[in-house]
């Protein structure tokens, strides 16, 4: 088990570096750099701009810049944000919590509605429940999350006099107000995944309910409740979990947009600010961090398989 985890962790490293490298070089293509942002208020002569570039190492050959970045990242130093005048690692440390909280709760939320919806839809196939759930999932898949976010903000401010909080409260400091703040963003982020996952639960359940062992279980006289939850659901969950693993990437994409809609100070808001400021190190740093989060989540999901299905052993 531990051997397996360590091997998987080692496999994450090249992927993350390739991803970082890709974005590193892509951002070097664009014209304009951090110096033009820093001196955009005017007053800077070309000479002083050039000097600043020299100081920041922007005139170094790209190979030198890249090896510096690579060496730094290997040592856990993601570089320096000249725009915010702080280390990237520090800024990430400040902002990662909001992003992670939102992403994880959105995932939990989508699983929490996907399973009941999918199960009801499969068990009562063809009923009004099924029809209703299918219409709901089809709509949820079609509504763009940022628009849903805007509508939720408007609705909440109309009905509950709710307004976007200015300061982010940590979940660990005050879970109540944190949830009050993240409630709507969680819905906006998680609803698409909920729809996708519930469709998958439905089709998996339909497949499993046809199996012989389900018929046997029913023939034994087990209660329907137990047949569905213990015999069918367990076997239907593996593909759903796999999907939930890879789908976390889509959730992270959603978080990036939703953070901007709801002004949540997380990595998604930061990456947009940094992109416009041409703050390369910061952008690449966030990409690296998001990649690590995604890889770690997929690993956790893979480890959950053995909980759901004890036949699965890792070696």
């Amino acid at each position, binding site marked *: 088990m531990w051997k397996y985890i360590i091997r998987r962790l080692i496999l994450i490293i*090249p*992927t*993350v570096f*390739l*991803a970082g490298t*890709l*974005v590193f070089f*892509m*951002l070097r*293509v*664009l014209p304009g750099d951090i110096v033009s942002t820093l001196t955009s208020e005017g007053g800077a002569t070309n000479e002083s701009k050039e000097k600043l570039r020299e100081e920041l190492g922007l005139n170094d050959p790209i190979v030198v810049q890249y090896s510096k970045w690579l060496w730094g990242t290997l040592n856990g130093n993601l570089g320096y944000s000249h725009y915010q005048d702080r280390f990237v690692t520090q800024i990430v440390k400040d902002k990662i919590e909001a992003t992670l909280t939102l992403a994880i709760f959105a995932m939990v939320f989508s699983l929490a509605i996907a399973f009941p919806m999918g199960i009801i839809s499969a068990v009562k196939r063809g009923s009004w429940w099924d029809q209703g759930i299918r219409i709901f999932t*089809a*709509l949820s*898949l*079609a*509504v*763009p*999350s*940022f*628009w849903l976010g*805007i*509508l939720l*903000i*408007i609705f909440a401010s109309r009905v509950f006099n709710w307004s976007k909080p200015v300061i982010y409260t940590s979940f660990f400091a005050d879970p109540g107000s944190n949830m009050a703040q993240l409630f709507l963003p969680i819905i906006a982020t998680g609803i698409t995944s909920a729809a996708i996952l519930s*469709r998958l639960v*439905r*089709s998996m359940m*339909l*497949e499993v309910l046809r199996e012989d062992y389900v018929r046997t279980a029913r023939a034994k006289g087990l209660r329907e409740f137990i047949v569905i939850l213990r015999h069918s659901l367990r076997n239907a969950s593996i593909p759903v979990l796999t999907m939930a693993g*890879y789908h976390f*990437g*889509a959730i*992270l*994409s*959603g978080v*990036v*947009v939703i953070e*901007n809609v709801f002004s949540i100070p997380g990595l998604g808001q930061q*990456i*947009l600010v940094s*992109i416009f400021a041409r703050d390369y190190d910061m*952008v690449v740093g*966030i*990409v690296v961090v*998001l*990649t690590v989060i*995604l*890889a770690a989540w997929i690993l956790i999901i893979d480890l959950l398989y053995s909980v759901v299905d004890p036949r699965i052993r890792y070696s």
Partner: protein
Amino acid sequence: MSQVGIGITTATPVPGLPQRTMTFISRFWRRHPSASVAVVILSIVVIGTIFAGVISPFEPNKAYGVRLGGLLEPGKTFGIHLLGTDTLGRDLFTRILVGGRVSITVGLIAPTVGITIGALAGITGAYFGGLTDLIIQRLTDTLMAIPGLVMAMAITISLGFNLWVVILAIAVGIAPYASRLLRSHALVLRSMQYIEAGRAIGATNQRIILRHLVPNSWAPWIVMLAVNVGNAIVIEASLSYLGIGIAPPTSSWGNLLIRAASYFTDNPHLVYAPGLMITIVVLCSNIFGDALRDMLDPRLRGAD
């Protein structure tokens, strides 16, 4: 003139073909009534966007003087602003029609490009195996490891905020998934006898890939395309909404929403109209895509 004549003769229907098409349409209608309705709605939207200039007397990027006019606001000089006007006094209805061009172009071209690139890569990898396959797979994994929207952001920011860059950015996000799917499909095909036969009579690798593997992979190709159209439209709208997709004044359903929420109290249609258009088009294309998948992939029939 004679050449035109030849063109016409070759275009005259092969006996049996129109009837086959008709049977196909009527069978599709009977089996998938909701998908047929979806196709009709999509066609109306597509026609509307193409003929925006004919349908609406207004120009999309011109200010007409009535700022933030409500629904059915009469124009200052002529016509009626069906959906009112925006902050600059531009006609919203026209801007939505024209913005639809962006969404539909992106929705059709981005997945086509992405799936084609991904499919070729995946099929090539599966066919050659070994190092080629390994490199392509690692690249696929890398692209899948970055959240799609973040990848798209990095591309638009480095290449510019226009239609073709947005298409490329979305295509890059779709390609790895196509590569995975088509690779596993091609692995099965590779061991088929006709591929072996092709090799035995000395067909080149290029010929086997392009003439045998690619044409036999069209069903998953179409299915992936149908599933990803809505996806691409939503990503484009999100990018444009964040200000890193299609840049104003060119209108797109995403960038029409940028500051719309601030005017919600008096002009809620500024928020509703573009969002509803995205939802309707994505919903219809998903319904159509599901029906298409149902027809082309019999293994999935009845599962969904």
